[in-house]
């Protein structure tokens, strides 16, 4: 791919007029505009990412940045699935309020779905989990998000079925923003699925999740953008006392994708797990970063991140565990395994541990291994063609992680994995 890096003039990318235009398109009142203008000020004060700093060492940020915020042309809409009984489907796209299809059961349970602009009236949580000051892309999103939704699961509510958020990318710029608030003691599952896009797609997304006291939230991110799309997604959860978040990321699509995922274990007894599946082929460039930040006592986190690459695909995984002095009795685990099917594929894996207290249990592991030719030969010697043998081996590589997922999540992720692997090119000869 020709490097299309351009000289950046960030003042022309985002000015007050652009912010006002975005606010207009996305809908929302004065509160929305005020927070956007504050974010604009932050954006102006935030220097663009520095490639020397570790988080940007592997990816040229300028290739992720939209050249302008000019809205894309008409959007190709995918088929919207009907929500199953007890479920809900929300479609999010730029320049339109979220479209909600809810089963009666989900509505009666009291799940609130609001356009983010409306929710901002009186909603203090916006920007607290991922503040504009988080970084350049996050400030850009906070000022200029062009489609947003706020989901609130009231305290004590247990949802049987997942809430499906279908985020549709145009072949151009889009800045979706999602806020999920899981009330005290609630239990819910949110599936955030990114689809659509094309060569011109520049997606800059932010998802904020607030997990209340004793609540359990499942968050599944299915990144299935079309070939050519470029995306930067930031996802953060703040977990309150004895609450838990389980994040599953399946990142398969696009040509250049950077994701920054993580949890702040803010109060004692909070738990967070991140399970990752990355499949890359051709010239796909994938850059994933996870953060587990422990600031309270007796918090727990685990990361199981798996990457399989073929063709000339590239992956960088950086996993940061930070345990503050205020977090004794904490357990944190992290494992990243990479499987390379072709000689040209490359994977980097960088664990980062910042442990400031002694009273912790923490382990981490990372491996990068080529495809085992003897496994391929064994399967082939049974009549299984080489490509299929490789798919079986990749599937096997993911299996131990997949099999730990609860059935409801596993079904979604497995379907996405199968679909992706069907088209996966053989790499070994």
């Amino acid at each position, binding site marked *: 791919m020709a490097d299309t890096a351009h000289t950046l003039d960030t003042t022309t990318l985002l000015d007050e007029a652009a912010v006002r235009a975005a606010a207009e398109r996305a809908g929302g009142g004065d509160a929305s505009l005020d927070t956007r203008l504050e974010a604009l000020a932050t954006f102006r004060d935030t220097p663009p990412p520095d490639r020397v700093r570790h988080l940007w060492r592997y990816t040229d940020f300028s290739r992720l940045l939209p050249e302008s915020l000019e809205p894309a042309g008409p959007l190709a809409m995918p088929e919207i699935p009907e929500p199953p009984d007890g479920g809900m489907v929300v479609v999010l796209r730029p320049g339109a309020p979220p479209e909600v299809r809810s089963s009666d059961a989900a509505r009666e349970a009291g799940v609130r779905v609001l356009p983010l602009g409306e929710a901002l009236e009186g909603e203090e949580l916006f920007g607290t989990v991922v503040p504009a000051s988080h970084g350049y892309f996050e400030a850009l999103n906070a000022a200029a998000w062009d489609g947003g939704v706020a989901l609130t699961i009231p305290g004590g509510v247990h949802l049987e079925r997942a809430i499906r958020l279908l985020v549709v990318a145009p072949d151009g710029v889009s800045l979706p923003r999602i806020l999920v608030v899981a009330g005290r003691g609630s239990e819910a599952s949110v599936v955030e699925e990114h689809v659509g896009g094309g060569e011109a797609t520049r997606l800059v997304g932010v998802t904020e999740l607030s997990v209340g006291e004793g609540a359990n939230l499942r968050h599944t991110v299915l990144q299935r953008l079309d070939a050519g799309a470029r995306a930067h997604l930031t996802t953060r959860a703040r977990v309150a006392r004895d609450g838990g978040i389980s994040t599953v990321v399946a990142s398969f699509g696009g040509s250049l994708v950077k994701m920054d995922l993580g949890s702040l274990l803010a109060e004692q007894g909070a738990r967070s797990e991140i399970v990752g599946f990355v499949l890359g082929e051709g010239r796909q460039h994938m850059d994933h970063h996870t953060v587990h930040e422990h600031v309270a006592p007796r918090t727990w986190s685990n990361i199981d991140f798996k990457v399989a690459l073929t063709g000339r695909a590239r992956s960088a995984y950086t996993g940061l565990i930070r345990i503050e002095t205020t977090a004794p009795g904490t357990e944190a685990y992290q494992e990243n395994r990479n499987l390379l099917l072709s000689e040209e594929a490359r994977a980097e894996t960088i664990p980062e541990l910042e442990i400031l207290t002694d009273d912790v249990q923490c382990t981490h592991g990372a491996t990068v291994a080529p495809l085992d030719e003897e496994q391929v*030969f064994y399967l082939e*010697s049974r009549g299984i063609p080489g490509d299929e043998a490789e798919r*079986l081996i990749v599937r*096997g590589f993911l299996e131990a992680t997949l099999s730990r997922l609860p059935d409801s999540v596993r079904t979604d992720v497995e379907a996405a994995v199968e679909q992706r692997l069907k088209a996966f090119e053989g790499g070994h000869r």
Partner: protein
Amino acid sequence: MKNEVVFSCEDVHVFVEDKEIVKGVTLEVRAGEKHALMGPNGSGKSTLAAALMGHPGYRVEGRITLLGEDVSEMSPDERARRGMFLSFQYPVAVPGVSVANFLRAAISARRGEEIPVREFRKLLTEAFAALDIPRSFMGRYLNDGFSGGEKKRLEILQMMLLEPVFALLDETDSGLDIDALKVVSEGINRVAGDHMGLLLVTHYQRILNYVRPDRVHVFMDGRIVRSGGPELAHELEERGYDWLAPEGAAVGGAA
């Protein structure tokens, strides 16, 4: 068809990089025939077997046919789908792939169409019973954490399900306890019947008491140095290999 040549190889040489390991092997196996291949450690028996199956790590010269068709240039999976089978001396573990899923993929590949679920279940149940393998193995990961003997049983189970026309069994008897040897031998005999050809690599006479060979070949330093009837195996058991060493041989290849 009985007496039909199911497998042949002509002047097969196998090289690893520039080292010649197999130095000209010619062999013909007819339907219903069982051949034993015996020879000292490191003489190249496994290399020959893997190369005949099409292992990509070797350079092979010579001609290999299966049911009269030249398969020398074919990939391992093409050979397998045409009915060649290799029971590995060291079966390879494939973590995460269940025995059942693997077997379904293999049977479907060999048949050229998906095997219906019910038929698959029935076949599997019978084969597991015949080889006295607990059903719980269906859900386990392929060869992952299996004992030596369990792996060998599973190799023969695969042979049973894939119904090859010609099978290379590389030390299927090593690692089996006395009872297992009997069960596995019965399995081999049952599958082999009178239409399949078999080349059995072994170090021991014992398995040959159950799986009775028509021919015994002595393999040393990359070559068949003597062929004879079943009595040759007994002679080897008594006398070892030294008396058969080819004159002026044993310096490990002329490279």
